[in-house]
């Protein structure tokens, strides 16, 4: 791999990280909630997709059409049953409760699917690439990146242009004042978690089509999502995309330079540097 290829690969894998991170960014932006079970939800989606493919056949892509609304409903239920109790209280409760949720999901998946690794088969698409001179671009990573950008553009339009989107931003700014303006916060929180789980389900399917997965992979995926959000800056959707891309670039460029080292290491190091030097993230709003 040459440097240009490494840059392109880094940007494209950044799309996947951004897709993971979108849900975390939305949850944190709207209700200051960090869900430690976020990665486990992605793994759950990959397993659900494989079940659907095994029973009904076809490519994993059609299962996305089922999993997006299912993810939304799972989000509504999670908000009502678990997260509603965690908003506006000591963050320690969030950590304990969502860490517990993570354990519950992992063990439920283990019970149903066993510890064997699985993969979602997208056939030739996984290895197809287009070449431009020396540059070789994987079709699947490109598709994944475009989906991530499409999700972020849609969310950004939703937040900026719609009535419900304004209510999201108002609630994020001041939940008490929002209530006094006639906004039902609980509805806003439910929709936010619905969106968060839908997007992480989408990310889970794309990840499952890229590499094989097992029931215990969730926390590892959470780390990438978390790093993308922190590097990009909390509460900024475009920052999340940028954070994903910067994380991807750190990994591919680091691996290009130091071939003996695991690529994730460079992402983790960059994350720590950003935390130390710019804790608000590269593109985050500075808190007054």
């Amino acid at each position: 791999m040459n440097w240009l290829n490494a840059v392109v690969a880094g940007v494209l894998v950044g799309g996947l990280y951004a897709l993971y991170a979108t849900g975390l960014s939305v949850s944190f932006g709207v209700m200051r909630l960090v869900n430690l079970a976020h990665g486990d939800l992605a793994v759950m989606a990959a397993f659900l997709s494989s079940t659907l493919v095994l029973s009904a056949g076809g490519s994993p892509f059609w299962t996305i059409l089922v999993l997006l609304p299912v993810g939304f409903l799972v989000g509504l239920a999670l908000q009502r049953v678990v997260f509603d109790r965690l908003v506006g209280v000591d963050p320690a409760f969030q950590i304990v409760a969502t860490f517990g949720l993570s354990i519950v999901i992992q063990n439920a998946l283990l019970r149903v699917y066993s510890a064997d690794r699985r993969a979602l088969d997208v056939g030739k698409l996984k290895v197809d690439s287009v070449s431009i001179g020396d540059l070789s671009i994987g079709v699947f990573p490109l598709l994944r990146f475009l989906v991530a950008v499409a999700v972020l553009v849609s969310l950004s339009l939703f937040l900026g242009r719609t009535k419900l989107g304004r209510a999201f931003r108002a609630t994020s700014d001041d939940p008490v004042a929002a209530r006094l303006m006639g906004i039902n916060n609980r509805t806003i929180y439910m929709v936010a978690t619905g969106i968060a789980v839908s997007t992480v389900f989408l990310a889970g399917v794309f990840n499952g089509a890229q590499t094989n997965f097992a029931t215990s992979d969730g926390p590892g995926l959470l780390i990438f999502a978390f790093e993308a959000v922190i590097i990009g800056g909390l509460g900024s959707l475009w920052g999340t995309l940028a954070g994903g891309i910067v994380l991807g670039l750190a990994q591919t460029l680091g691996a290009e330079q130091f071939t003996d080292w695991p690529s994730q290491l460079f992402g983790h190091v960059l994350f720590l540097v950003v935390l130390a030097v710019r804790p608000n993230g590269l593109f985050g709003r500075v808190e007054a």
Partner: protein
Amino acid sequence: MGAVIEVDAVSKRFGALAVIEELSFSLEEGEALGVVGPNGAGKTTTLNMIAGDFRPSGGSIRFDGQDVTGFSAYRRCKLGIGRTSQIPRPFEGLTVFENVLVGASFGGAHRGHVARDLAVDALRRTGMISKANVRAGQLTLLERKRLELSRALAAEPKVLLLDEIAGGLTDGEVQELVETIKSIHASGVSVIWIEHIVHALLKVVDRMLAMDCGRVLVQGDPHEVMASDEVKNVYLGSED
């Protein structure tokens, strides 16, 4: 006709501390009621309970004859109880227009151009139309107070609860705000206004209620209430 807000034997305790005790008063439709009293008298707590920020420990609150004691704040806003906060709390990341639009489209439950027209109208009435596209975080104190007012207005309230909206403003600014509130009241909105700046209150309100220690001290004609011995005692601390 009739009372639009009825506060009936309402109490509020925070732990062992009783802030409001068996408080009863009412607001007639179209009336402007001023509320005065020393700090800690329970004025803001009373307003919070009418707006639904928190529930009374005892007693009931009726709006338009309907018992709203168990209703959450957003439902009361939709019914027609508007409210401004002592410390303005604009949505700082939104523009002034968006702030007001939120009031019109959620509190007022309107859509599309109806909501936009309402928002524009509320901005005109409060003199904020020239700031429509400014981010609310960049406003001055007077502008923030005006924004509070226009946001509440855009939700088409029948009753407007004002909590020390003139506090911290210069005399000139208070004068401007008084004119705005007068015109809102003249358009048929009932008002409960808590304020320490008594001369501002006297220009607007039809009736005055003085509170102390969570109870009604005296109520009636604004000038008579302010001249009463009870109010003088509370403010001047005389012991006779």
